[in-house]
């Protein structure tokens, strides 16, 4: 082993006053993640996030499987947001293979991706609720999430791991009568999540606990390269769906949500506002979608990419999700790298927790919209 390496907080000795505390790696509901904090009384002096407990080597596995068989396992890092994590990979493979996707498939993808964003956000919100000891906020999102899971089950056949996006379109066409059911469920869903404002977002206890805690300034958000809800809560208007539209987002009517405060409250509100926008996108997409047509281009068996590399990115439930694929004229990719938003946002955690009270740690940590399994890949 190398002796030059710095020891890290876990082994570092400071003085008698400072206590080192291991938080985790057990974790309710998401994945395992350890945060090592040094505390002086009730205040956090330093923090060292220690991910890696659910590292499964997805990128290594992708080098052994061909472009199509990679699909079911590459969605595993975030099974609740599986359409969005496959999206950049599928877009990248399409560019490598030179495939043009049918119009109807693009709309189905956008609808699936937006439904998935809501499913992920509801799960995240449920855990955020229970982190703060608000058990109603755990039950409601966990229950209302089923509405959309039912829709996705009708669409793809699976409740969470859909593997629905494939290079060249989507796996199946929509079932008959899907548009009406979807519209009805989404309208009801929208009505339901608007009610969350009264019990959660306008709740004085929540505001007292999260406002002005873990403030990330605009400059730091840019400098640290954060993304998604963390970036937009700090006043930077950057959403890949607007800035670099993929598939049919350019033709759909929606806006991005930006807040200026940069605190835990703003960071937890942005995903909820995004869900309201998602409902608008789904309704508009259902309206504009071609009523019939092909949804999948037939590929040759074992398609090969050229001697090239692509980097594609989409806006997932947590932020910009990039996929870098290097191809070397073989049926398997030479290298697949997932640049995941959770991993990119994790760098902000030590900055946010410094000087914060230990009791605020759960709310600051979870407001980063962080998914341990995704960060570890």
């Amino acid at each position, binding site marked *: *082993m*190398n002796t*030059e*390496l*710095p020891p*890290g907080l876990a082994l570092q000795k400071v003085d008698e006053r400072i206590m080192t505390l291991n938080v985790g790696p057990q974790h309710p509901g998401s994945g395992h993640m350890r945060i090592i904090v040094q505390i002086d009384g009730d205040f956090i002096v330093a923090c060292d996030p220690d*991910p*890696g407990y659910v*590292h499964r*080597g997805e*990128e*290594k*596995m992708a080098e*052994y499987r061909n472009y199509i068989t990679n699909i079911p396992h590459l969605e595993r890092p975030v099974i609740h947001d599986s359409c969005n994590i496959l999206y950049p990979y599928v877009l990248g493979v399409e560019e*490598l*293979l*030179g*495939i*043009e996707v049918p119009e109807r498939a693009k709309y189905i993808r956008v609808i699936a991706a937006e439904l998935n964003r809501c499913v992920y956000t509801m799960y995240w919100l449920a855990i955020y609720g229970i982190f703060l000891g608000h058990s109603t906020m755990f039950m409601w999102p966990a229950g209302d999430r089923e509405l959309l899971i039912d829709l996705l089950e009708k669409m793809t056949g699976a409740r969470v791991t859909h593997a629905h996006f494939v290079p*060249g379109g989507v796996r199946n066409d929509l079932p008959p009568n899907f548009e009406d059911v979807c519209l009805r469920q989404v309208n009801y869903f929208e009505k339901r999540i608007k009610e969350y404002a009264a019990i959660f977002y306008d709740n004085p206890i929540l505001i007292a606990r999260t406002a002005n805690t873990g403030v990330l300034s605009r400059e730091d958000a*840019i*400098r*640290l*390269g954060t*993304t998604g809800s963390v*970036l937009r809560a700090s006043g*930077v208007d*950057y959403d890949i769906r607007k*800035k*670099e539209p993929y598939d049919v987002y350019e033709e759909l009517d929606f806006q991005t949500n930006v807040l200026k405060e940069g605190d835990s409250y703003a960071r937890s509100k942005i995903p909820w506002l995004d869900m309201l926008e998602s409902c608008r996108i789904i309704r508009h997409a259902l309206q504009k979608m071609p009523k019939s047509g092909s949804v999948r*281009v*037939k*590929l*040759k068996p074992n*398609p*090969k*990419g*050229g*001697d*090239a*590399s692509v*980097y594609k*990115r989409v806006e997932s439930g947590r932020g*910009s999700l*990039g996929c*870098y694929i*290097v191809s*070397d*004229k073989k049926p398997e990719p*030479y*290298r697949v*790298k997932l*640049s995941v938003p959770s*991993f*990119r946002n*994790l*760098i902000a955690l030590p900055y946010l927790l410094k000087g914060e009270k230990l009791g605020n740690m759960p709310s600051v940590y979870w407001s980063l919209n962080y998914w341990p399994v995704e960060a*570890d*890949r």
Partner: protein
Amino acid sequence: MSSDSDEEPIETTTEENPKSTKVSTVEKEPELPKFEKGIADKIVEKFGTRIKVAFVKPDRVRINVSRDDVKEVASFLRDVLNFDHAESVSGVDYPQDKEIEVVYHLGSYTDSSLSRQILVLATRAQREENPIPGNDATKLPSLREIFYSVEFHEREIFEMFGVFFQGHPDNRRLLLPEDWADLPPLRKDFAIKGR
């Protein structure tokens, strides 16, 4: 309409092997997107032959630099061209070239004209056959002083490829266990059992 890549005239770039400069995309001028060409030209104007423009595609420009120049080029990209953060840093292992490539994907939040653009900055480190991560020649200068956002990405590449980043303040493992005693796992000679 499926098209196989064998017939497809996929852009032959010089990125995989910088020595073979048979087909350079920069010469086919009318096809190149204008804005991206402008970015590439600015970099070429400043650094001349020290950098190599690997491709200019819509929204993507890729430049290859040697390890000695990477810090200087990165400072230029940040200070003059306004790229302010790294979206992704990837390692790619090329055992046949005895090199490991590190690829930075840079983006910009502050300059709205660059919001679609990703600048791909690639550099290569010498690759040791029997790596002793941190104590061998597989070293690159760290870009953490220039792009703060690469901190965790470079830590990941250190453990996954054994590339030691000189000047990185916190060269520790991130995802792997502390007592990992095998090859860096994303190198090509680390084989998965049964495959």
